[in-house]
């Protein structure tokens, strides 16, 4: 697949509203840039960590449960800041309260299935035409993965859904 980038909150604000950029600029002008820079660094480190978690799933699809958990901890704690929440609600037809959880499941499923890569997500944040193409591909990957997970869930007999034993 082509290079694509998506970094949830930042992409949303930068690409669709520009609000964060303006806010950060104003804040950095009005206050000491130290704390802001530290926060940005921390966010960047978290994103790098998540990138490597996804890279691990690419190589080892069996690690998806860990990646899913990592993703949910990351976005769950930032629920109010999950910038893509409205997009996921519309794209996957899920309640807003479940957006981060569903996003993580679909994302990890897509990566484990080889339909998306960690690099794809990173690349999709570019505001270039290529980045927008990548964003479309990421949305496609999320849709496909989400529908597959839903179909699997529907096909499972109630007992299997409960105990996971397949009987």
């Amino acid at each position, binding site marked *: 697949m*082509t290079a*694509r980038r998506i970094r949830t909150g930042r992409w*949303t604000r930068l690409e*669709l*509203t*520009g609000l964060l950029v303006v806010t950060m600029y104003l804040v950095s002008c009005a206050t000491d840039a130290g704390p802001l820079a530290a926060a940005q660094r921390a966010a960047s480190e978290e994103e790098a960590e998540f990138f490597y978690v996804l890279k691990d799933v690419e190589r080892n699809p069996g690690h998806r449960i860990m990646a899913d958990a990592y993703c949910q901890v990351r976005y769950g704690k930032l629920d109010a800041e999950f910038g*893509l929440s*409205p*997009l*996921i*609600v*519309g*794209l*996957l*037809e899920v309640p807003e309260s479940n957006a981060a959880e569903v996003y993580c499941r679909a994302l990890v499923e897509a990566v484990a299935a080889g339909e998306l890569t960690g690099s794809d997500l990173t690349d999709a944040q570019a505001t270039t*035409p*290529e980045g*927008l*193409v*990548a*964003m*479309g*591909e*990421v*949305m*496609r990957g999320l*849709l496909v993965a989400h529908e597959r997970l839903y179909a699997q869930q529907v096909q499972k007999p109630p007992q299997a859904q409960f105990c996971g034993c397949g009987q």
Partner: protein
Amino acid sequence: MVHVVVGLLQVGDEDATKAVCEALTKATATGSYSAEQFRSFSLSVESETSLLELGRLMRALYFAHILKPIPTASKP
């Protein structure tokens, strides 16, 4: 939006507009998307609502695009 559609529907740049129009028409005809929703999307630029509407539109386009063409009445 054309670039996003290229990635979403896996079509070439030159086919993107045609693909969007076909999918949008199909989605509207089958009732999975409405003119009101498209109007909301168009009017909700640069807001959180736009993300919601964008997601809905992309979903509708994707499913309409992958659907087989609606069969027409067979000729006598």
